[in-house]
């Protein structure tokens, strides 16, 4: 195996941003016909390494050779021309165009009169089909499909380029188990055709399932390159976080279901809440100290239900009671006033305010509830920022950086801090652990449990059934934009309970 000639060799890569050395002399070697994973915590420098290779960032020191030739790409286009196809961590597609156009952009099929749209859309269809997206019409506007599907579209797009190197930065973060398997099937096929694949994921199971070789980074430094099959999990975790695996905070067994007194009133009680075309009327109640999980497949309407609860979309039917009082939550401002907070799954478009600092991003929601002309006193603000930076373990621990310069996982932590700072009674978390490293994931799960035990109501939306089952008291199961079941969590409930419920329930439309 070792006598294979590498296709990409990166040596001593150093990249410095004002104030941080994101990469410090990192090596990476990719071999054809192998899946290679970049491993490391949030902010370790994985995405930066990928951007260095594809010419998005200029390197400050080091060398890159592709197929033996020294290369200095001046942007993705150059990298593409050299046979490197990339799907970046944040989905980068154009929401103003259709799905098909996005897949084929830059590679449209041409006829005698320029682009031949019929052929192009047909081609798009076949690529979409490869990704298991045969049900999506290429003419659908991209903006109308969920983030997860957009992720798949982005991967389909990478397939169009006949690449020698395929780079996938956290492609599985928003996919459910089935889709991950579909994706792996494709990756195997591509790998076997002799393509080198660079893969990033925070799911160790996936890493052990699909990869051949690992490069481990920590704090922008190269730690080691190893073969996957020779490396036990604890050793890998140890290398990634710099301490032994045992020290990782562990969450015990499944949460015990919170008993509800017969006379107790729920915080939130909705009846028939719905919006035409997005989610059919749903009944739901959430008690203080309860974690309610939303489970369902991609596009089942979990996000839409969360948004309705928060007033991000205006419901067009239903009754909404909050602590026994009838309210109408028509916009986020009202929701926040009523102590409801919602952390979005779409971090880039609806979450972070990119050019503002981490500090401002933490404070902004609290500030909005207090009103524009009542600034939070500096002392109080400092305390809040300090508290949540520490609590969420945001790195780098500098609150005065623009949030857009943080790694994806750290952005997510800051956002959760933002919502906690408003002291909500009901906190809706939509995919809060997406893109978060194993250490931090456990931390966030712990935070959820702590919050609940202090009396907060939590809605927990996640594509990972495992964590839904582990954290929730009640699980609402959704399918095709209908609530199909409400499962009281207990010893008999497991992931398969939910999967079966979904499979065996038919939704009348």
């Amino acid at each position, binding site marked *: 195996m070792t006598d294979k000639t590498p296709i990409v060799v990166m040596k001593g890569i150093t990249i410095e941003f004002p104030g941080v050395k994101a990469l410090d002399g990192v090596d990476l070697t990719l071999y054809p016909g192998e899946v290679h994973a970049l491993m490391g915590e949030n902010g370790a420098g994985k995405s930066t390494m990928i951007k260095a290779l594809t010419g998005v960032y200029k390197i400050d020191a080091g060398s890159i050779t592709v197929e033996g030739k020294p290369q200095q790409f001046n942007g993705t286009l150059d990298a593409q021309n050299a046979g490197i196809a990339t799907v970046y961590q944040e989905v980068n597609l154009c929401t103003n165009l259709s799905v098909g156009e996005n897949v084929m952009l830059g590679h449209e099929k041409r006829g005698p009169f320029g682009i031949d749209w019929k052929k192009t859309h047909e081609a798009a269809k076949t690529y979409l089909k490869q990704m298991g997206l045969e049900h999506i019409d290429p003419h659908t506007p991209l903006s109308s499909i969920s983030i997860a599907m957009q992720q798949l579209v982005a991967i389909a797009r990478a397939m169009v380029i006949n690449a020698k190197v395929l780079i996938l930065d956290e492609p599985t973060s928003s996919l459910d188990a089935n889709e991950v398997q579909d994706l792996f099937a494709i990756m195997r096929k591509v790998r076997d055709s002799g393509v080198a694949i660079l893969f990033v994921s925070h799911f160790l199971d996936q890493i052990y399932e699909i990869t051949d070789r690992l490069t481990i980074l920590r704090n922008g430094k190269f730690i080691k390159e190893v073969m996957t099959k020779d490396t036990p999990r604890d050793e890998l975790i140890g290398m990634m976080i710099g301490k032994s695996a045992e020290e990782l905070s562990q969450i015990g067994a499944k949460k015990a279901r919170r008993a509800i007194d017969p006379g107790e009133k729920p915080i939130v009680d909705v009846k028939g809440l719905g919006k035409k075309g997005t989610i059919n009327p749903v009944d739901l109640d959430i008690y203080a100290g309860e974690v309610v999980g939303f489970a369902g497949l991609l596009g089942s309407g979990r996000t839409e239900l969360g948004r309705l609860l928060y007033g*991000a979309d205006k419901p067009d039917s239903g009754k909404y009671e909050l602590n026994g009082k009838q309210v109408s939550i028509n916009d986020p401002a009202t929701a926040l006033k009523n102590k409801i907070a919602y952390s979005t799954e779409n971090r880039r*478009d609806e979450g972070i*305010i990119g*050019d*503002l600092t981490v500090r401002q991003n933490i404070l902004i929601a609290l500030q*909005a509830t207090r009103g*524009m002309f009542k*600034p939070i006193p500096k002392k109080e603000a400092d305390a809040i920022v300090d508290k949540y930076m520490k609590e969420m373990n945001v790195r780098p621990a500098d609150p005065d950086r623009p949030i857009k310069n943080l790694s994806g996982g750290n952005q997510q932590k800051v956002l959760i801090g933002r919502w906690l700072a408003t002291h909500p009674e009901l906190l809706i978390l939509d995919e809060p652990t997406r893109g978060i490293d194993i250490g931090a994931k456990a931390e966030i799960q712990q935070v959820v449990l702590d919050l609940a035990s202090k009396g907060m109501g939590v809605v927990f939306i996640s594509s990972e059934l495992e964590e839904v089952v582990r954290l929730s008291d009640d699980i609402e199961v959704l399918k095709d934009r209908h609530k199909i079941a409400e499962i009281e969590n207990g010893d008999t409930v497991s992931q398969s309970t939910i999967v079966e419920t979904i499979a065996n329930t038919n939704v009348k439309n």
Partner: protein
Amino acid sequence: MADKKQEEKTNVFKKLLSSNITVEVIALILLILLCTVFDHAFLALSWNDNTGGLAGPIITMLQESARYLMIATGMTLVISTAGIDLSVGSVMAVAGAAAMQALTGGMNVWAAILLALVIGLAVGCINGALVAFLGLQPFITTLIMMLAGRGLAKVITSGENTDATSVAGSEPLKWMANGFILGIPANFVIAVVIVILVGLLCRKTAMGMFIEAVGINPEASRMTGIKPKQILFLVYAISGFLAAIAGLFATASVMRVDVVKTGQDLEMYAILAVVIGGTSLLGGKFSLAGSAVGAVIIAMIRKTIITLGIDSAATPAFFAVVVIVICVMQAPKVRNLSAELKRKRALKSSEKAVAA
């Protein structure tokens, strides 16, 4: 300890170098130098007993800059929300027309000033309502208001260039544009005070942050409980109000409104001042100080044109050249030239090392 201090020093130095304002100030100084070379008395100041203030080229330049300061400040806030206000020039004309017409109609001078400000504010509010609540595009909305505002000014004066020079009792207004405070032009002082007030309003409350948030990502802002519509409405209203003050400066200086010329093309100057000051037309972070220096630069360019005696036919070309030079100086490519060179050198040496 000493090391740290050293580091801080270099940091401050680096920050200064990378700031837009530094480039602006350099440009301003260069323009002043250029003028001084052509006209040795350019920097000379004298006391004018006639007006009770300092006199000299720099003073007239500051006097002219007052109106740019006003519209550039409003424009900064609007641009920060990723909008644009093309109507400021017309609002100047409307406000000026209202004041002059009211004065000739025998209205009390303070009432006339108030009337002008209210009208400016009202036009701003209409802009704001159309953009925020009807969701129209700022460019086209304020373009329409630019057309309609000019018409409104004509309606107010029945198409005349109303002249209030000889109206008795209008001294306060005249003083606003022509008077002096401690020898410094009153309008410049007033303008600077207003800019500082707006600055304090933005930075001491959360207004500035909210405006920037809306400009950076309106949807994310909405999700944090900010009401983007209110913010949008607010910035256009402020812009209208400040444009009215600028209109008073422009008309009171000659106590006459010119329905066609007052404020003509000034929206472009204001936008230039804002962009030179480092606020992006795509919205987001804004710098009022940058815009203020930008406004003074615009006045200085116009002064330079007069001082150098540039042929009136060539004026626009000269203006263009100066603006291009300033913007190119601010380009990251040019500014980071030394850093870029250093990086290239480091890369070369590391490549050599790899080869060896």
